[in-house]
């Protein structure tokens, strides 16, 4: 077996060679960051979540069997961490929302600045944000994280053909929202 494969490295980490985790970090930190950033649109939170994925790998290294894909195992943790984060944020309540509304009401030329902000905002990212979590996630995994249908199926616990159908529906929805936004970028 290739001693530098993801699997081999993680097994070495399991045996106590923690420095090998550095290689896995170099390999995956950017794509994990991309995964979280596209879900949260928050740089700081995304970096924290990436860090937590590796922390968790270290904590649960004993549970690594090395029989499946390392990537699937990693994204499994990433998804759990994101779910925890999402739940926590929901519990924290409406603090952020109040701040946003406050800012809007304070600003007299609110409509105008709002419009400019909207135009500057990446249309695609905006459209992605309108999708349900399920659809957004499957698009991120397949298009940006470049995971194979089979690996996504393993990760989500559904069949490969269900993955393809979900991708189709997500892409179709995205196209609809995107075209609407493109036609009227300043509309609410």
């Amino acid at each position, binding site marked *: 077996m290739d001693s530098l494969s993801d699997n081999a490295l993680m097994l070495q980490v399991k045996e106590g060679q923690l420095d090998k985790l550095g290689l896995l970090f170099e390999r995956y930190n950017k794509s994990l960051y991309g995964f979280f950033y596209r879900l949260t649109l928050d740089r700081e939170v995304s970096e924290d979540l990436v860090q937590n994925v590796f922390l968790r790998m270290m904590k649960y290294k004993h549970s690594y069997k090395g029989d499946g894909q390392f990537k699937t195992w990693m994204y499994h943790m990433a998804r759990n961490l994101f779910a925890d984060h999402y739940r926590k944020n929901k519990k924290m309540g409406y603090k952020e929302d109040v701040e946003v509304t406050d800012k809007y009401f304070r600003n007299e030329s609110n409509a105008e600045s709002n419009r400019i902000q909207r135009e500057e905002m990446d249309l695609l990212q905006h459209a992605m944000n309108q999708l349900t979590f399920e659809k957004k996630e499957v698009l991120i995994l397949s298009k940006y994280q470049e995971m194979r249908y089979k690996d996504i199926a393993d990760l989500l616990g559904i069949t490969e053909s269900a993955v*393809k159908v979900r991708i189709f529906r997500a892409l179709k929805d995205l196209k609809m929202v995107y075209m609407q936004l493109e036609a009227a970028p300043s509309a609410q």
Partner: protein
Amino acid sequence: MEEIYMSMITEFIDGTLSPEREKEFQQYVREGHIDMAEVEEMAKLQGVMLNSSTPEPSSALKENFYQMLNEAQEKQPQANNGSSLLEKIKSFLFANQYGRMAFGIGLLVIGLFFGTTLGNSSYKEELSDLNGQMVEMREMMMMAMLEKESVSDRLKGVQMSSQLSSSNQKVIDALFLTLNSDPSTNVRIAALNTLAEFANDPKVREGLVNSISKQKSPLMQVNLAELMVKLQETKAKDELNSILENDQTPEDVKMTLKASIEKII
């Protein structure tokens, strides 16, 4: 639309359809089950998605990660990693560095005792023998230290090597390995400083020149360039120039390197 068409469209857009399935796909298009205009629009949007820029994490992510890793490594009980055979044999013979030190000193004392009691004839011979053993011991210790995980241990290893003579190729090789591949810049700089002391040796000079192109860190590039000026090593010019031509090199480094090249006559 039926799910079998949806799956096929996804695969068609991703380009993962097998030639037979592609034929089947075209058949469905002709029969009107699949709207090709819609598929093309979706493919176009996917193109937009794939062209969008990739979000990049800040440098803080890396720093925090390695800090976390270091902390975790320090907390970890010093287990035998079995990194090399040499390491294994040594840790089997001597549990820690103090043990090794005591072993070395013990040898010296025993040697001196025998040397003085067994008369003058064998005294000199014994002593030089012991000296040789001490040097060997130091070399072994140094190389073991260079393989440690902790940065401070590796630094100690480099410091030890400066007390050894430059004649030993094994020591020099170990230092060059550290200079070219140690993950810590501090350790690499220490190795560079030690090797600089041995720069009278043409082989060491050659190794130093070759190392220039292997250094990615601006700090190392600048340090090496300064050393080359001190040594007036003309052979280094080509290596330094290649760093200058590299687009990735920061402007500040380029300026310093230019100044250094001019100083090498």
